């Protein structure tokens, strides 16, 4: 049974949230002081809220979020692996295939590509395994965000540097208008990697 003089439930709800006007709050608190039933109702509203919060917060705390942000970022660009990964893949290709495939894999445009390859000794078939040399590996990749043609520097363990000048992937090409995903691309004849066969 409810006393007609008791506060409305809606008021209790607003009071719980601290959203009553000053005068309404004062009046309600005066009533609560003398009404155990309303005090109990208010306490119950509060208890349910606390239990609800605890319920979902506990589950959230128990969950492992270590990969969450990365997954979100991965969802942002579904079709384009990051530049570093593309270069790393391209480097693997370089070791075994023609440069054409390598450059194609990067989505580069022919005239904008200059490759300078410095090696301390000419690679021979099988030499990699014999000498125990792994060959240069992708150590660091950096791009100049400002430039239209971006230099990409691959540093190797041996201190060699492989410098690519690439058309910046997110900016349109200056001159050519050819499709960036051209599969077969060869470097200009004037430029040849030094130091041995490919």
């Amino acid at each position, binding site marked *: *049974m*409810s006393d007609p003089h008791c506060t*409305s*439930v*809606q008021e*209790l*709800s*607003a009071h719980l*949230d601290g*959203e009553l006007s000053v005068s309404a709050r004062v009046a309600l608190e005066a009533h609560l002081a003398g009404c155990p*039933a309303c005090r*109990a*109702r208010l*306490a*119950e*509203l509060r*208890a*349910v*809220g*606390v*239990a*609800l*919060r*605890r*319920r*979902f*917060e506990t*589950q*959230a*705390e128990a*969950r492992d*979020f270590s990969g*969450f*942000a*990365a*997954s*979100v*970022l991965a*969802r*942002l660009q579904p079709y384009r692996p990051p530049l570093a990964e593309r270069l790393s893949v391209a480097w693997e290709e370089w070791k075994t295939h023609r440069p054409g495939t390598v450059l194609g894999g990067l989505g580069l445009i022919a005239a904008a590509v200059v490759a300078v390859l410095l090696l301390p000794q000419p690679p021979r078939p099988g030499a990699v395994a014999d000498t125990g040399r792994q060959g240069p590996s992708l150590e660091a990749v950096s791009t100049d965000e400002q430039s239209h043609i971006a230099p990409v520097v691959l540093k190797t363990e041996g201190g060699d540097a492989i410098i690519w000048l690439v058309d910046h992937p997110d900016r349109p090409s200056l001159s050519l208008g050819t499709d960036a995903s051209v599969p077969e691309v060869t470097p200009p004849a004037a430029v040849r990697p030094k130091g041995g066969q490919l």
Partner: protein
Amino acid sequence: MPTDDLTLVRRARSGDQRAFGLLVERYQKKVYAVALGMVKDPEEALDVSQEAFVKVYRYLDRFKGDSSFYTWLYRITTNTCIDVLRRRGVNSSDSVEYDDTVQMDLSEASLGLLSSQVDTSPARSALRRELGEKLEEALAELPEKHRAILLLREMEGMSYEDLARTLEIPKGTVMSRLFHARAKVQRLLARYLNDEPAKAKTPLKKGGQGSE
């Protein structure tokens, strides 16, 4: 001193994905907790949470910065959850009453959670133990909008003003909607308490205080 939201948003807008990642990390658990309350299934909640952040990133340009980032984030989160729920089509808000005129008598729905020590009835003890579980069930029976407002208020302690901004409703509606949400939860819990599991699953009938 952690970087404030608006600074991170500004950086993220100019392409700084690392800044965006920091924003995600700051809010991931909170967003997940709300999503969990909304869609119930943990894996779906995780997926929805990620989707919400993806939308945040894609619509960063639309965030004007005149309101707080977190109300905007929660708006996207609850809307994404509501979309998921509607696609599911299971809990249609049309089937549950939303009766403004019924004065809810809380005493009937008194749960006795905080009753005196003499009350040792098995049903009440069981309810106290299972309260969290029953709460989830009760929440799942609420219409999405009631669920959303209750979760945001209880989980985030959002003021009525922030709730109004987040849900894009007038402040007066916030007050009445919250009240109705709480009243429904109390009634549903009272049904569980009265040890009628079958009845507890049925939606509240139109025009009544519930079929007892």
